């Protein structure tokens, strides 16, 4: 028994390290384990590439009006047709990806970061600070995301920067609440007490010792936020409270002319609608897959 034991130990100790796997093999394995997540990631990557190289992949200026080509249906020259001012719908959708990603990432990053700091701080300090802070968060979270964004934009006015701010405001409490729940567990781990005993400052403990340990839920949250931010931006623009003409933006493309011409020129509404759906779908799939990978409970159950 003992020999066997020793032998097993010996085998384990001298076992060959895991073979190096090339990236395409890893990718294939990941695709096999998380096919939906990879599909989502591909959509996101495609969108990022489109936004980055918009100038190279579009045949026309997205804001230039062209009298002669008003409401042209999809054909060889205009693959998604043109809108009522003769602008190429495909070019506007590609450039619209820039607007969507800029608003999406900026809102999610800033909103998420503020939520992270506030959530961890709330958990770390606890007591009266946590109590008051969480009640304030409750007030903010009582309003649905779009309603809160509408309220903010009504106060600040329209425009890309204000839309980003309007989306950040409702994101912060949502992120802070999720991060706080994870941070509460971290706070009870002895190394936090050890850090305090070493005389580290609050900021150092929060930023260097607690925040990195809540990254898994934070990243999942931020990924989901990007999709939500894109949808919220599109909603605000559709309502005329977001990005303004002539900036190419998907929600804006659905508004006004698209409503008016939805029947006689459906391409004006269909393609921006598809772009919004696909982008949000992509980010949500990617976020779900990320959660499956990063959440240890879900990982062990697989």
């Amino acid at each position, binding site marked *: 028994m003992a020999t066997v034991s020793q032998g097993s130990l010996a085998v384990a100790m001298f076992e060959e390290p895991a073979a190096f796997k090339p990236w395409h093999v890893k990718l294939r394995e990941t695709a096999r384990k998380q096919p939906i997540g990879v599909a989502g990631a591909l959509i996101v990557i495609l969108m990022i590439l489109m936004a980055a190289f918009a100038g190279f992949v579009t045949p026309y200026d997205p804001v*230039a009006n062209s009298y002669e080509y008003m409401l042209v249906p999809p054909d060889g020259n205009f693959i998604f047709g043109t809108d009522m001012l003769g602008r190429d719908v495909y070019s506007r959708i590609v450039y619209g990806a820039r607007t969507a990603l800029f608003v999406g990432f900026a809102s999610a990053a800033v909103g998420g970061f503020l939520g992270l700091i506030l959530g961890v701080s709330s958990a770390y300090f606890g007591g009266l600070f946590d109590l008051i802070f969480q009640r304030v968060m409750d007030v903010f979270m009582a309003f649905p995301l779009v309603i809160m964004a509408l309220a903010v934009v009504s106060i600040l006015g329209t425009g890309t920067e204000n839309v980003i701010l309007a989306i950040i405001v409702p994101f912060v409490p949502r992120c802070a609440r999720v991060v706080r729940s994870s941070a509460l567990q971290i706070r009870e781990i002895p190394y936090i007490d050890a850090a305090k005993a070493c005389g580290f400052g609050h900021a150092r403990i929060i930023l260097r010792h607690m925040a990195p340990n809540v990254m898994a839920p934070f990243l999942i949250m931020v990924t989901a936020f990007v999709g939500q931010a894109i949808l919220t931006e599109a909603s605000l623009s559709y309502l005329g409270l977001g990005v*303004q*003409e002539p900036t190419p933006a998907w929600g804006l493309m659905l508004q*006004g002319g698209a409503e*008016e011409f939805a029947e006689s020129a459906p391409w004006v509404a269909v393609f921006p609608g598809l772009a919004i759906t696909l982008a949000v779908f992509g980010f949500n799939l990617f976020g779900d897959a990320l959660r499956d990978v990063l959440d240890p409970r879900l990982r062990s159950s697989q």
Partner: protein
Amino acid sequence: MSAMKTSFTRLALAAGLGAAVAAGGVVAASAEEPKMGGVLRIVVGSKIPSYDGHRESTFGMIHPIRPFYSLLIRINPENPQSTTDFICDLCEGDIPAPTNEGKTYTFKIRQGVKFHDGTPLTAHDIVATYNKIVFPPEGVLSSRVSFFAAIEKVSAPDDFTVQFDLKHASPGFIPLIATPFNFVYAKKDLEREDGMSWHQKNINGTGAFTFVEHQPGAFVKGKRYEGYHHEGKPYLDGYVAISAPKMSVRLQAIRGGRADIEFRAFPPKSRDDLVKALGDGITVQESAWNCTFGYAANQNRPLFQDKRVRQALTLGLDRWGASKYLSKIAIVKTVGGLAFPSDPVATDEETLKTYYGYWPDVEKSRAKARELLKAAGAEGASFKIWNRAVDQPYKVVGTWMLDQWRQIGLNVEQEVLPSGPWYAGLRDPNGFDVAIAPSCQSVVNPIVDAGAWLSQDRAKNNRGYYTDRQLDEWYDAMNRESDPAKQKEIYRKFEKRVLHDEAHFGQILWWHKINPHRSFVKGWKIAPSHYLNQSLDQVWLDLPDEERKQRTMDELGG
């Protein structure tokens, strides 16, 4: 193919029918016997800021509220296309001719008229009303006060006579009195403690309908006033004005049978969609529209104090191209100067083509614009257009303007706001850079309407915030001039200075009014303004008896 042919045939037939209605009102329907009863369902594309006609300037108030009120005189509802056919409403007999060398107008007031609360109407009510409009107390907003500058005094020699004394003879006086915003209020209401603001939230008129209910943001309801002073009218039991700010909602409401008519206008594409979908069920009325679509550069901004920059802005716009193409998607059409294009005082096309921004060669025009911008040191200048969140024609034409100005190297953005903040910004001398400044008048009266381009201390709606005493002088001169030829001559100088020499205002296109409505709506004739002919007392529904009764039951409960 045959289906396509059929729909084109129906489209052509309906368009032809509409043209016939607009052209002469000679459709057989006008000879039909009106049917009593039923409720008219109207969709209105804007909200009601207040009920006070003297204060407001929007169709959002006129369409739902005008039927509760009467005017002293009004345009002839049977001949609304005429710019000179006025008839008495609360006065009686013919429209009076002036006496005292054109300086006195005396109206005999109809007897037996009662306000909806039972108060008898007398000349003193008319006097109190016009005193509020023409001589508003400090702090009381009377939106068209500058137009009435010629009036010296309004008085009542007896209970049923009203006399207007003018400072000088004014050929534009009668059209002014027919302005549909001049609701006649009861003197006793105006003499309340809050009398000057009471009508903002309360209604008491002598119109064809009495107020039933207003659910803000939803609808206004009115029912027939049995004591209405025009015998036998109104024909309807009532009406409901449904608030629907989105154009697509209004369109679908008419298409789906939830509404019968919209009195402002639909764009050409919507007209075609309705005709295609409903065929004979839709009648289209079209008319030139007494609304200009233009812009004003705020001269409180240093950039626009240089007239070369203002001239460059107007040169940068391809009006003739816009007329051809934008008219397919928006409710704008006619290239024109300051005066309503079909009015005798309007500038002919050849003269117009000599003004900046009206040159037929757009490339030459843009080259000149770039040259002027360079000379003014304003190449690549940046500014924002202050636009209104109304699709037609504001946002469509605003977006077109951005593209036009981009082509002369300007860096332009737009800020689109709901009506309230947009108006508030317009009234703020420092609230904007360049504002979309529509000038929508009711009765066609270009000589008086030119008051919109007077110096800022005289014209409350001067959105350029400039002072130009030469314009003030010419305006006064043409309003006192009784010889039409001389008047036109002064008007020409006035217009050239506004549009070309000083480029205080950028006129773009005149609007084009298209009203497709359910064919069973009879008795309403399109006017050259969406403010006019909205008393609804002549409107009736050519529906079966049961259907009219059912509508009354549904909307008014019996």
